[in-house]
């Protein structure tokens, strides 16, 4: 008895077929896992749901329900500051997405095609902008721009956004390149294609799903970025997150509820359509 207590149960060689006793317990474990998961989903979605519900509340505060209204949405579309910031965000997001997707896709292909010395170090340099605390990237780019005397504006924000967006494209495309037929390019070139034609007509179509996913990721990241933008932007290129943050810091504002609801709705549509496309393709 004494001996049994000191040895962990799992290390004792088992009596025959002890598993018979477990299924009941395993069923309980499964049920509690399911319950936990749905509780976490409730934690995810209840705040967002409340945000949406109160965007229709006829009161400036969230504390009481005063009645249904869509006036906050109306005010939102008349809010010139927010509309202009949204336009800036779209410009920055679009240019960033184009540049980051080009740099990321080409970079992934080139790093795949050639065996470079120091490839590990290049990989580390690509990885750093994805995970470095944003404030460090923001202040170091600010130091660069101010020591070079570059005025801050659209160009500097776009440079900053491309820097942390393109690695996401590159690594996504790299993952797809891992599964590529290694002789695909050679086959194309045997059939008379130049390396550029082989890339454009054979490799790129194969990479397209990863390129599109990367572009979407880059656009979302750019649209959502606050900290890096704060340090690299000028007064003429204020983005939506900067303006919304300024409003949120002052206090509750149902216009933010309305704006958030529109964005969350767009996000849900995007994720659902992504899932549907995946399903359609796998069929």
């Amino acid at each position, binding site marked *: 008895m004494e001996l049994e207590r000191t040895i962990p149960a799992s290390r004792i060689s088992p009596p025959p077929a002890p598993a018979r006793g477990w299924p009941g317990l395993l069923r309980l474990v499964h049920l509690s896992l399911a319950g936990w*998961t749905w509780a976490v989903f409730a934690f995810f979605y209840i705040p967002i749901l409340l945000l949406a519900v109160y965007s229709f509340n006829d009161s400036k505060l969230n504390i009481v329900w005063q009645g249904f209204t869509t006036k906050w949405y109306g005010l939102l579309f008349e809010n010139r500051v927010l509309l202009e910031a949204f336009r800036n965000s779209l410009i920055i997001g679009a240019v960033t997405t184009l540049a980051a997707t080009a740099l990321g896709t*080409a970079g992934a292909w080139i*790093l795949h095609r050639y065996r470079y010395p120091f490839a590990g170090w290049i990989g580390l340099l*690509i990885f750093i902008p994805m995970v470095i605390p944003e404030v460090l990237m923001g202040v170091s780019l600010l130091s660069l721009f101010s020591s070079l005397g570059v005025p801050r504006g659209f160009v500097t924000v776009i*440079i900053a956004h491309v820097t942390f967006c393109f690695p996401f494209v590159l690594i996504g495309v790299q993952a797809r390149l891992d599964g590529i037929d290694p002789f695909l390019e050679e086959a194309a070139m045997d059939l008379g294609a130049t390396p550029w034609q082989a890339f454009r007509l054979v490799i790129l179509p194969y990479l397209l799903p990863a390129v599109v996913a990367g572009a979407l990721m880059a656009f979302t990241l750019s649209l959502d970025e606050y900290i890096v933008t704060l340090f690299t932007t000028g007064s003429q290129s204020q983005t939506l997150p900067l303006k919304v943050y300024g409003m949120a810091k002052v206090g509750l504002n149902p216009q933010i509820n309305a704006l958030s609801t529109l964005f969350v709705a767009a996000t849900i549509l995007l994720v659902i359509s992504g899932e549907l496309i995946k399903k359609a393709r796998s069929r």
Partner: protein
Amino acid sequence: MGYLLPGSSTPTSATPRRTPGPAGWLLLSPLLLWLGLFVVVPTLLLVILSFCSRDPDAPGRVLYAFTLENYVRAFQPTYLKILGSSLLYAFLTAILCLVMGYPVAYFIGRAPEGRRNTLLALVMIPFWTSFLIRTYAWVTILSNQGFLNGILQASGLTSAPVDFMYTPGAVVLGLVYNYLPFMILPIYGSVEKLDQSLIEAAYDLGARPWSALVEVILPLTRPGIVAGFFLVFVPSIAMFAITTLMGGGAVPTVGEVIQKQFTAARHAPFGAALGTLLLLLFFAGLWATKPRREPEPID
């Protein structure tokens, strides 16, 4: 989303990869130039700036003369305390995310194929939603004129609003709410790859569910846990956009202090010194969690 994992991509050895000639290097140059100019040089500049001093006559200007005064100041108790509490909040956030997220990741990873995508989509929606929206959602719940205080007062439990906001609890809640998907997704990646037969083998050998978890499942999903911990802990240290919104000025974090030095306080060299310390922590974390060579799988 598995590609968020460091080192998840391993080039196949079968590829006929070339040794780069002049053309190969020319093709690589845009990438190298971009990384050099916008990653390496700015980081070095930040470190250099941390050893410079501020022009006493014109506070916004930097004097390029070597000094250690910024570091002396950074190691004063005031700032060490802020750095310490930032690390503590980030650590608490990562632990809470792990405890909350692991069962979710496990449940999704073991769910039947058809349901798995739906469950995963339910994690992806908050992942893709703006951090600002998600943080503001909690502001509308916790603030003095917010939803929770509305319920408390309507039910007569309290007469005056309770201060939920601007507390360390609110800060950690904001961070957990934002970073939880970053814990779930990499762990899910590990759980999905988990070989069911290994777990069954453990049961066949008489393991109880608990020891199967501790001795088989947790060690096999370790890469996901390590990646998730890194992806939550590191950004949480300096994510001042969330901590300022949830903590007001009352719960200062190191990110907030760095930001202030570069903006309102106009003392960039001191901000750079704090930034360099944070950079060192970041590289230490990167090194500590870098994927180690996995043991060869047993066939």
